[in-house]
């Protein structure tokens, strides 16, 4: 997923550090600080869960690809063996991109083959991936 956490935190710094023209002070800057505060809150969640989520997702996609290789081709087994070079978010995301590309190709092949069971399993996996990546925004009071 993009943007990455370091991009957002560096961006927050720059959004506050670069002075704006006079017409962008006051209400606009107050709103901007509010959004940056929300980003900080979400960043805390990403720090807490981001690595674990990516490790889980990569393993889950890898398992689906490996299991499908016998039916859909050895290339999926090769993609399934993609692993991160280390446990940094950047390395996990790079491996995740390769695995997701493999999953997209597999799902297209599954749909073309009318393989309903595997199709439903992949759609179920999407639900888990999305829920685990979800960021929780607290219900803020209206002003």
């Amino acid at each position, binding site marked *: *997923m993009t943007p990455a956490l370091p991009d957002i935190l560096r961006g927050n710094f720059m959004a506050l550090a670069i002075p704006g*023209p006079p*017409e962008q002070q006051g209400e*606009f800057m107050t709103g901007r600080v509010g959004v940056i505060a929300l980003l900080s809150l979400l960043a805390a969640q990403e720090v807490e869960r981001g690595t674990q989520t990516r490790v889980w997702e990569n393993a889950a996609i890898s398992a689906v690809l490996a299991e499908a290789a016998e039916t859909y081709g050895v290339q999926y087994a090769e993609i399934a063996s993609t692993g991160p070079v280390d446990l940094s978010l950047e390395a996990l995301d790079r491996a995740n991109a390769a695995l*997701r590309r493999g999953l997209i190709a597999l*799902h297209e092949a599954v749909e073309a083959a009318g393989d309903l069971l595997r199709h439903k399993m992949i759609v179920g996996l*999407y639900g888990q991936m999305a829920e685990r*990546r979800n960021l929780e925004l607290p219900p803020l009071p*209206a002003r």
Partner: protein
Amino acid sequence: MSDLKAGLEAYLTDLWGAPTSVSNLSRIPGGASRETYRLDADTGGVTRGMILRRDPPGSLIETDRRLEFLAYRTVHGHVPVPQAVALEEDGGPLDRPFFLMERIDGGTVPSPFVFDPYAEHAAALGAQFFTTLGRLAALPHEGTPIREVAEAPAPEDCWRIALDHWSGVIEADEQHPQPIVRAAVRWLYRHPPPPAQRVSIVHGDYRTGNFMHDGAGTILAILDWEMAHLGDPIEDLGWAFDPLWNHFDENRVAGLVPQAEAIALWEAASGLKVDPKALAWWSLFNAVKGQAIWTSAAKEYRDGGFTDPILAISGWYTARRHDVILARRLAQLEGI
């Protein structure tokens, strides 16, 4: 004096043929697709409250400011909107394209991400919100200003044109592979909706957070017409119903009224019927469209040097919310 203030004074002096000074110029928060400013323009002792909409260096949505300007002109008098005043497509003294419109004062536009912003006025605002959308669906558009730039598709082509456009945006702007939205796009191509009952003016971003109300139960203006086009009016209904805009309230669409009530209001005002199959298609489509917008936001955030936090939250938080919405809708449609 800022460059923007000086540029506005030069432009308005030329436009109105009389020396004009600008005061109280301030940017309004939000508006990731256009920079939005409020200002007072003083000419010969007459003060006009105005809004400036200027193209930003990087934008959430690539849209045609002429189309937005003409949309305001088309619906003015039929839907509550401010009067469009002037359009400058080459940017002139403001460097980037912009348009000016009259300002409506005394209203509030809550963020879509706050809890229960309409409180005891939700039902009254919901009645106006969905009745107004129904009236827009019924509005004749032949020979109106928007037809100068917006083609009317055939009723059976509305869905394909919309889907081709937004899936193309994902294809062009995606930086990290997105299997969920791609699966949704394929589902939509495999299961076309019924043809549009009527080809209407579609607002394109009709939702909570894009209307101004007076805090006492009256809508003052429907805003942000930058994605207006002609198409199937159910598209707007699907976007207004998207769970992203429900203010954490699963029982009321847009945090206003229950969905069945919204549909009844819309049907009464539009004279059209909501086919559940069409609504299901356009609801999934709108989650795809949302994901396309957030995908572009993430790209613009990167291209713009990571300095606009609105683009960050759009490309990150809302993108992940829409993945959840897409996955749930896909599972429902597949009976999982």
